[in-house]
């Protein structure tokens, strides 16, 4: 088992980052206004839904192989916004799931999103379904759905592995507008090559704040930026410490040396 006492420096850093995020959340909840830069991939969601409405073809939302965890729940939060937008225009949607636990929550999210959009009667229980928890069985199922239904827009958010390119290329072949976002850095190049918009890195976690503009989420997002600033400062100090021995900052380098 890994414990903080294995490396107290890392544990202290985790604690410090947590405090920074919590402080910014609290200040945002107390009314401080924060600004977020434009994220084109998330602005493209409305464009994609509009295009699906014009074409009269369904929207596809794939949470990848995400289990019921942080990544999967974040994907559902983004999908919830898409569903609310789609419900206004009466778009049909399809959401195949690879994880049974996530499927159960996804079903509720879709139903609630239709209700929140004021169109509970438009919810189709067959729109969300469990396909398979085997990677390539799921991939073939989703690719088949894309080709059969000729989806107008495809939203790929969550954990993706080798199947990412199968989904993205299948979407390309039917001419779907595609927006993707994942935390799997190894799959990002595939999405960038095949999708119209790709949400990179921590933009994935920024999505819910960007979409909802809810103070807690905005505060958390700003806290993340402060944390990244801290990392940048540490990296710069590390570069200086290694490059200029006269600074006698060996202790600093040692602090961050593994092993």
């Amino acid at each position, binding site marked *: 088992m890994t414990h903080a006492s294995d490396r107290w420096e890392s544990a202290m850093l985790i604690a410090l980052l947590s405090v920074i995020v*919590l402080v910014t959340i609290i200040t945002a909840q107390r009314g401080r206004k924060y600004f977020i830069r434009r994220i084109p991939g998330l602005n493209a969601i409305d464009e994609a839904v509009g295009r699906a409405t014009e074409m009269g073809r369904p929207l596809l939302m794939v949470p990848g192989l995400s289990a019921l965890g942080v990544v999967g729940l974040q994907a559902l939060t983004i999908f919830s916004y898409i569903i609310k937008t789609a419900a206004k225009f009466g778009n049909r949607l399809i959401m195949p799931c690879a994880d*049974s636990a996530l499927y159960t929550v996804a079903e509720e999210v879709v139903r609630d999103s239709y209700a929140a959009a004021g169109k509970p009667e438009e919810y189709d229980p067959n729109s969300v379904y469990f396909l398979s928890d085997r990677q390539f069985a799921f991939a073939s199922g989703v690719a088949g759905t894309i080709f059969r239904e000729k989806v107008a827009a495809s939203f790929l958010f969550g954990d993706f592995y080798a199947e990412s390119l199968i989904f993205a290329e299948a979407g390309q072949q039917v001419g779907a507008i595609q927006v993707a976002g994942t935390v799997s850095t190894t799959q990002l190049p595939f999405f960038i090559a095949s999708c119209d918009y790709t949400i990179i*890195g921590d933009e994935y976690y920024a999505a819910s704040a960007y979409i909802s503009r809810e*103070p*807690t989420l905005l505060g958390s997002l700003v806290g993340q930026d402060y944390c990244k600033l801290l990392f940048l400062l540490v990296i710069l100090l590390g570069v200086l410490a290694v490059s200029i021995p006269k600074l006698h900052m060996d202790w600093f380098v040692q602090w961050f040396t593994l092993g």
Partner: protein
Amino acid sequence: MNLQRFLASAFPAAHGHWRWLAIVLAAAGCGIMFFVLQALPGRARKALIAAVTFLAGLFYALEFFWPVRRGTDENFLTFAVPTVGNVINVLAAFTLGLGVFSLVRIHSSKIVKLREGWPNSVVLLVSIVVMAVAGLRFEETRFFRSLFRDVLNSFDAAMFATLAFFIISAAYRAFRVKSAEATLLMGAALVVMLGQIPIGQYLTHWIPEKGSFASLLRLDNISNWLLLTVNAPATRAIGFGLGIGGLAIALRLWLSLERGAFFEAKADES
């Protein structure tokens, strides 16, 4: 003390008919818990969900931060980690049934209404039944191994193989020289690819491998430089952002600060 050993001795594994009785009793207990949860008013349910989430998160946080006993790799909570992990597995197992139910419901309805592609649904349902029976009753037989290895794994491999074609079409699109960035990407990709294959390495094999300025012009050295000095830091930077983002969302979920999130909305509506 080991909680799992204590539980194993307190509740010994049931066999034969007793096993089925134990399963039925456990399912009934879970059903009662489910109805109690449903019957709770929204605010009480919200508080309960927040309390359980906080306690579960606190367990793992404490287990991580609490100092270990001298000479060991354990603290006073480490013994319970496998048991808590098993609880999560049991919860996940319940949802698998719901997943299979969803599949059966959708495809049965397709067959009954003879919708387009209904024979595929028949094949799917028959496959589910055959595989389940083979796995439960004939796991050690050649029949099951053949189904698993010769059929299922072959299908997986066939699907994986399609990636080769998709990579070509994606690469074609990515490397079309349409802008300065695309040209740069194309050039970098070409150098990296050449640097990784024997024929590419042969092209500049006459340049000394190291020790002189000219060695920087060897294709394999340029390729390594691109991968390790340009690509790796960029990937790490994305990793930093993702790590911090994950920490922030985990904190929000743990402390139930995720306003507008699914569980909060569910609690507020009732």
